[in-house]
């Protein structure tokens, strides 16, 4: 059993805590143009990212996150980094860029709780697939 006020939490940077306290763009978009789902509640983190695209630009982005402080902070940061970007620009956003924008993450949180960039890439793939006229990637999409 793990403690509430252990020093472990202080290994989060101020930026992580700031994002966790006031995460941006949380929630879902009705009728999105692309959806990306990553993670697995069994591992502890699970998120679903929605994009709305107009003229090749991400004009709205939202994310739903189940997970720890790092998962929520990286979700929020990723949406802020992608908002207003062109699809091509958004494609270059990586986990490392997200972690760097938060002044880093504790090493053990680097992979398992930093999935939002991956969800973004999946949402973009989904958007491109739909643009080609294929079926949406996620059958359970709202």
């Amino acid at each position, binding site marked *: 059993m793990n403690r509430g006020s252990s020093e472990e*939490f202080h290994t989060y940077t101020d930026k992580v805590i700031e994002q966790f306290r006031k995460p941006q763009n949380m*929630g879902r978009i009705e009728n999105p143009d692309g959806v990306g789902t990553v993670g*697995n509640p069994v591992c*502890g983190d699970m998120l679903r990212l929605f994009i709305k695209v107009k003229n090749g630009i991400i004009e709205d982005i939202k994310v739903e*996150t189940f997970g720890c402080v790092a998962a*929520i902070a990286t979700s929020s940061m990723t949406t802020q980094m992608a908002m207003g970007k062109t699809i091509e620009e958004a494609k270059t956003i990586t986990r490392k860029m997200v972690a760097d924008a938060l002044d880093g993450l504790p090493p053990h949180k680097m992979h398992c709780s930093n999935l939002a960039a991956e969800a973004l890439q999946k949402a973009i793939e989904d958007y491109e697939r739909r643009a080609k006229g294929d079926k949406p990637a996620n059958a359970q999409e709202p």
Partner: protein
Amino acid sequence: MAYLDNANSTRVDDRVIEAMLPYLREHYGTAGMELGHSRDVTAMRGLENARKILAQSINTEPLTIVFTSGQTESNNLAIRGAALANSDKGKHVITCATEVMSVLQTCKALEKEGFDVDVLDVDQYGLVDIAQLTKRIRSDTILVSIQHANGEIGTVQPIEEIAKITSQRGILFHTDATQSYLKIPIDTKTTPLDMITFDAHHIHGPKGIGALYIRKGTRLQRIMEGGDEERRLRPGVPDIPAAVGFGKAVEVWGGNEPAQLLALRKYLEQKLAGQLTELRSTGHPVKRLPNLYSMIVEQIEGESMLVQLDMEGFAVSTGSACSSKTLQGSHVLKAIGLPPEISHGSVRVSLSRFNTKQEIDAFVQALVPTVERLREFSPLRRGEYFAYESNSEDEHQDEKLDEE
């Protein structure tokens, strides 16, 4: 700041600190076996007085109490010491899945040294099944180690029944009473326990001091070499100031404290009821530590709740894998059959004499919006436990292995 993590450790009582100070400042003798100078004698008196207080608390003689450095050492000494000393009779040991690591890992180490260990399952409440235990007993079983109460979910094991079974068969029975000590009475005269682990820092005493009760006539081998201190079972100069503090902590424990803790826990349960949906408590509803309430808040993850509550001044615990550096979830929650996605939402509240109803009110007031906020953006809030489409789990697994 409301400290609601007393199953983890407790605030040292001021009376304990006061009792310890003279043994740090003035009576710094070593309480050796030999007749020494007056400083040694004063120190020895302090140590022996503490031993007497501990002995009285479980209705035994001071000679049966050995001071150790805490729960971990007591468990090691009890299990390893008894296994080694009795290996001529057999090499089979029985324990259960919800024990603390110092029990489980000691048993694991014994396995590597040629002992056979059976780890009993527990039911959904965390209780061992007496019938299953009886069935597992073999002619070469020498030791059973089952905790008195679990520190994560609070479930209290039927140690009286187990002791009856083991004593009839001449098998040693060790129980780790760290969490239950003083909260649930133990009488060594009426319950045939052979070894009991105690710890001071769960009862407002200092850290780094514990004790092991060893019934007279129990064959035990020491696991650390050195001098003859502590009945030749635990060499080394005991931490006398800490032992004095341990004794004081026992002495000042109030007889009505368990009832007060239970009343406060019930108050918490009442306050929570109806405030939050999809909340379930873990552990046995009745056979439970009076001061412990452990719950699962569905759809959200424990570390997030903890950090949020911490920022608002409340210290609690979680069994969520995400809050441990090894990313391993609680083995206790797993043992009671909770799937990982559920146990991620675990929160444990554990109370002490220093907690008040006002703190409980404030805690519930902070918890409800915390849960609501995190649920608001949880993808699981509609019960959508959908399949993932990511390769990140593989990486996650690699990560786990790296951590180990």
